[in-house]
């Protein structure tokens, strides 16, 4: 890794933000997004959902301590210093934290002490704290989450470094790692990439779990549930009159103070709002606005790379990695956590890329339910002459573990006998039908062009799938 000259330049050079599963940290400035725990909550990925449960257990353990009157214990558990290593945030400042940890902990404890209702109920989402404490905003939600899930972020970062060949430094000190089993915080040394600026650890965050504002957020609460509440209490007019008559309007901080006083007293307001947001979960999508690269330029770069890779065994590994980049460019954040695997089956090398299908798009939702699995396998075959053996191999591989839809990415359009073989795989696999789709170089180029024009590659895949299903009827 080299040190980029531009202070806003990404820390990872040579790979586009479009092509990877994680948010690429930038030097000297935070990426203006945060981790949204709601995206963990709504995920179909068991691992992500378990992370959300872990987050809640930790937070509610702190609440329980407050309820028992063990404030020092609560202060220890609810200790969430800023995790500067993730390089995410909403303010124009460096990755270095602003020392808000102790302050945040104090705010949370104060909120809990001031709200017996909250102590009784606990939280369903840590984001609720934004609605109950004047000092807690979206960035603090991200901090809380990053602290409790730091062990996951370390493992994720190490996995991504292996995939992308990013250099890691051995034994980088990492502070404040939460152990869910003992509910203790500890420090440790991990193999992690480090910042070229200050040598501090870098933690990568999956693109799938970041948003500009959390799905459950204060602004939205005010616009929806709280406005309805005020309307019901016929206070809107009185408030407006009071505002204009007195000082020409309260400050935002004073407004929020008023709001949290109400919510602490009537926790059902928060309850109703949270339930409403949960029911709209399908609309909660990860952010992509922070990607400020030129999509068309990246599409052209990927097309050039594709043309440069020669078919054959020698460049099979390069081809697999390029296919991963292209698929990330096309389908992330619908298909996430793409992991290349290399295995040998019957003496033949297989190069697969397994994606987790955590999409809310109708087509991927259909694939997830119809073809029995949260995983989608793409098999990279760097050959001009895909044969029947490869089809058989892929068909054997599809099943309960990785689902029954696989895509072979190969260089040329299939010969008729190979296409017929794919049809026969479908016909012979009833009742649990197996679908093998293929993507050639030409089709990848077409998809890249679509993405450049801001059209949906997922819709193209849906149409591609339909063509297969109608041809096989």
């Amino acid at each position, binding site marked *: 890794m080299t040190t980029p000259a531009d202070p806003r330049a990404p820390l990872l050079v040579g790979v586009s933000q479009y092509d990877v599963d994680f948010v690429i940290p930038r030097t000297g400035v935070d990426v203006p997004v945060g981790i949204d725990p709601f995206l963990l909550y709504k995920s179909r990925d068991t691992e992500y959902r378990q992370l959300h449960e872990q987050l809640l257990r930790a937070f509610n353990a702190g609440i329980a301590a407050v309820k028992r009157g063990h404030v020092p214990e609560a202060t220890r558990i609810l200790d969430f210093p800023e995790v500067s290593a993730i390089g995410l945030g909403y303010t124009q400042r460096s990755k270095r934290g602003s020392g808000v940890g102790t302050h945040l902990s104090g705010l949370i404890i104060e909120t809990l002490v001031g709200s017996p209702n909250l102590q009784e109920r606990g939280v369903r989402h840590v984001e609720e704290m934004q609605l109950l404490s004047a000092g807690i905003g979206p960035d603090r939600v991200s901090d809380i989450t990053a602290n409790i899930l730091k062990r996951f972020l370390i493992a994720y970062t190490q996995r991504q470094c292996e995939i992308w060949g990013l250099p890691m430094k051995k034994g980088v000190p990492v502070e404040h790692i939460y152990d869910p089993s003992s509910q203790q915080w500890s420090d440790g040394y991990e193999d992690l990439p480090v910042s070229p600026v200050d040598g501090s650890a870098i933690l990568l965050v999956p693109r799938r779990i970041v948003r500009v504002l959390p799905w459950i957020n204060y602004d939205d609460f005010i616009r929806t549930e709280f406005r309805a509440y005020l309307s019901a209490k016929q206070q809107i007019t009185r408030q407006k009159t009071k505002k204009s008559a007195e000082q020409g309007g309260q400050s935002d901080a004073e407004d929020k103070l008023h709001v949290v006083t109400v919510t602490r007293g009537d926790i059902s307001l928060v309850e109703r709002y949270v339930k409403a947001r949960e029911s709209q979960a399908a609309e909660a999508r990860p952010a992509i606005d922070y990607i400020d690269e030129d999509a068309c330029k990246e599409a052209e770069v990927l097309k050039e790379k594709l043309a440069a890779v020669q078919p054959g065994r020698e460049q099979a590994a390069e081809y697999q990695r390029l296919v991963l980049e292209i698929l990330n460019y096309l389908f992330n954040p619908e298909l996430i956590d793409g992991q290349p695997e290399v295995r040998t089956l019957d003496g033949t090398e297989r190069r697969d890329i397994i994606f987790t299908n955590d999409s809310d798009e*109708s087509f991927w939702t259909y694939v997830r339910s119809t073809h029995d699995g949260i995983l989608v396998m793409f098999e990279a075959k760097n050959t001009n002459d895909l044969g029947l053996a490869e089809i058989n191999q892929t068909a054997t591989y599809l099943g309960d573990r990785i689902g029954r839809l696989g895509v072979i990415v190969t260089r040329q359009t299939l010969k008729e006998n190979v296409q017929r073989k794919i049809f026969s795989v479908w016909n012979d696999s009833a009742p649990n039908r197996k679908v093998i789709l293929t993507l050639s170089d030409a089709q990848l180029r077409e998809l890249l062009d679509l993405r450049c024009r801001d059209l949906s590659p997922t819709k193209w895949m*849906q149409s591609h799938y339909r063509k297969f299903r109608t041809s096989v009827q």
Partner: protein
Amino acid sequence: MSDTAPRKENTEAKKAREKREQQELHERRNQQLLDAQKALETLKEHLHNTTSTIKECEALSSHSKGFYEEINKLAKGKVLIGVTDLAVTQANDIIRDAKKIIKKDVHLDRIKEFVPAGDNPVYPDVLVIIRSVRDSLDRCDEEMESRVKTIRRQIEKARTAIGALEYFLDDETEEGEDEDKNYPTKSNIEPYVEGSVSDSCFSQFTDTYEKYFDFERLDRQSLQEYLSMHEGSERDQAETNPEDQGLDSAGDAESLDEDAEENEHDEEEGTE
């Protein structure tokens, strides 16, 4: 030796030849009878299958009409809105059922079941497809009705031929009538025929204008050709595609419920 001896020999040889010819004719008629009975069974089976198809066609046509009308009502103002899952399932059932009933309709062959793949088809698409299926069902109904008429005429013809052959082979016929047995009249055959006698099996004597069952025609043609409903020249009959005769797929036919078929036949005869 007198010349009466060779003459006697000639007479005896002639008698022997005639006897042998009679025997051969008898055997041929027996074989023709067996073939005709077999063909009749096949035709009955085809009639049963075809009438069943007509019933299926009518049921599906009625169902698809109702479905089409309801979707058409719902479609008002919903040009780009996808139909419900239930509507997709029903549309696909209609397409699938139609394909099972109707064979060799190129337009229906081109229609495929909807594959929602996450997004159900929009109302106009469902309407267009179901309309095409209904057109295919209408075509199928017309074709099947015409086929039933043909098969019924073929059955009548087969029964007449069977009657004529049974009459020919009936040993209880009085002595001296053998000569007539080669040219049986309608009244000779009628007692042997189940149902109506088919006029198409008869020819006319040029002198008396009396009609007789034409065994010569039966002998000249294969049974398939004979039962063909092309009434033109024999050459036309020979050129007729055997598939059109309803005799090509007996093996595919379902087993017959004889009683039901007989009742059906009686009813059919009553209407004609």
